[in-house]
């Protein structure tokens, strides 16, 4: 072979080696597809949503790298990427499963949080509506405020896809709402007592019947319904909205407890001009009140040197005021009551005369299993 021929042969041989060594490396496309799934999994949050599955995928990917490297290191004739392709397909399948799982979990968690928050908000709205029935709502409002703050935080976390932390805040919010519900149930426990309900109904009926028999006027105050009803000859002729003491739903026990008393009373004085507009003084404490006070003192329930109290009136000045235990009305309503009532007019104050359509019916829902 001549020198030029040898050169040309050498060139051709070298070219052939280059072509062979660098033949389109049949690194299977499945390998790249598997590789591209990892960032997709990270964006989907698989690393924290389903960490075990994510790590399994990552580990598999590292093994796949190893397989590719081993095959690629071999000379052309000895490379066999079939195992690599198979492993690549397995990794793609695994990656897609993990990705679907992460996305599904994410949407599922977000959806559950939304539903949970909606249920808690519904309970909160119901409780806020109930607080209009009573003044003793400090603890309830505090708990509801805390629940609202927790829900707000939950929303921020949910939007950042921090679902576990968001779920914890949702549980906290629900817990606060449950506390508020328990507080209301406790507050109105006495009102749910059938014996108490019957006693109040009997008082009211006796008062109205007696006034009817005498042909006179009677006044019935119902604390839970926040109403003052005037009866003439046994018929209700006017109903007015009222305000009560700070702890108006409780039965007054001693001076300064800010509770509104329950019982059968009479108007003993009429005052045309007081700091609270017109006023009608009733004869609290009556004999039953004094007996209850004595018993309470004996049991240590009366603070200091307090006595049973007094100066309980029906007066004007507004129904949204917090009285010291009196029954408050708007001035225009007080004008009417003052005009109709006389000294000696019976005034019976009860806890409630109705269960249906009141807060007591709503409470039943808290107590449902």
């Amino acid at each position, binding site marked *: 072979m001549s020198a030029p021929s040898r050169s040309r042969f050498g060139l051709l041989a*070298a070219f052939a080696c280059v072509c062979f060594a*660098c033949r*389109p490396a049949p690194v299977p496309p499945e390998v790249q597809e598997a590789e591209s799934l990892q*960032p997709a999994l990270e964006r989907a949050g698989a690393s924290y949503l389903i960490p075990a599955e994510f790590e399994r995928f990552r580990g598999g990917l590292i093994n796949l790298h190893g397989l590719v490297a081993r095959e690629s290191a071999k000379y052309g004739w000895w490379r066999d990427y079939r195992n690599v392709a198979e492993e690549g397909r397995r990794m793609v399948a695994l990656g897609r499963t993990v990705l679907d799982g992460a996305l599904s979990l994410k949407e599922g968690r977000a959806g559950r949080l939304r539903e949970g928050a909606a249920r808690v908000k519904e309970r909160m709205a119901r409780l806020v509506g109930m607080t209009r029935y009573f003044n003793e709502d400090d603890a309830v409002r*505090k708990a509801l*405020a*805390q629940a609202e703050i927790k829900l707000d935080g939950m929303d*921020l976390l949910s939007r950042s896809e921090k679902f576990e932390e968001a779920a914890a805040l949702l549980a906290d919010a629900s817990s606060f709402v449950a506390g508020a519900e328990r507080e209301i149930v406790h507050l109105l426990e006495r009102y749910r007592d059938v014996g108490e309900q019957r006693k109040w109904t009997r008082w009211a009926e006796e008062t109205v019947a007696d006034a009817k028999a005498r042909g006179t006027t009677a006044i019935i105050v119902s604390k839970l319904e926040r109403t003052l009803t005037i009866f003439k000859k046994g018929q209700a002729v006017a109903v007015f909205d009222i305000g009560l003491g700070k702890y108006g739903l409780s039965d007054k026990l001693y001076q300064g407890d800010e509770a509104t008393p329950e019982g059968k009373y009479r108007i003993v004085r009429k005052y045309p001009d007081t700091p609270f507009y017109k006023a009608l003084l009733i004869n609290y404490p009556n004999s039953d009140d004094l007996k209850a006070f004595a018993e309470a003192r004996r049991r240590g329930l009366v603070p200091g040197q307090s006595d049973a109290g007094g100066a309980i009136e029906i007066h004007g000045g507004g129904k*949204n*005021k917090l009285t010291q235990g009196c029954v408050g009305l708007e001035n225009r309503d007080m004008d009417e009551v003052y005009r109709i009532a006389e000294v000696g007019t019976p005034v019976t104050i009860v806890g409630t005369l109705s269960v249906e359509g009141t807060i007591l019916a709503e409470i039943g829902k808290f107590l449902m299993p």
Partner: protein
Amino acid sequence: MKNLTKSLILVLTVAVVLVGCKQPTAQIDSAKAAIDDVLKGGADKYAPEELKTVQADLSKAMDEIAAQDKKFFKKFGTAKEMLDKVKADAEALKAALPAKIEAVKNEAVKLQGELQTSINDVKELMKKAPKGKGTDKDLAALKGDLEGADAEFAGIQKALDAQDYIGALNTVKSIQAKVAGVKDQIQAALDKTKKK
């Protein structure tokens, strides 16, 4: 001599091509390790957008590798540069994280102080509210609301102590919203009394 030169050139060409044929596996692993490091440092909380950018760049680098792999003459040079940039960016992000965390912490502490002032201001406003003007019940209810906000305030310090600065910041914002609402309602109740 000429033939020797030509052979040498060919050998070098072969070597270059062979080297260029290999996937930059080491750079891939290196870039991914750098991103993992940044994740462990809390980048997902304190620099989420920067983290997403780095992760997206990694995806682009992987796509470039995939594209080159399909070719006869592969050139992974660009992909390597992209991977090197991903690694450098991840490392830079890791270096910047402490400052970002500190900034969030400082913001949370600052807002915590402002919130305490807001709560105190609302308490004072409530004390000054005229009593017996038909607003008692509203004000009593709002007092309960403020007590709730006050009770949650302690959670801010708890989060700061646990170095959960994002958590502290979120709590501050939630309480701020509630206190602002209470203040507005107190003001509305007071305005009602003035109209009477």
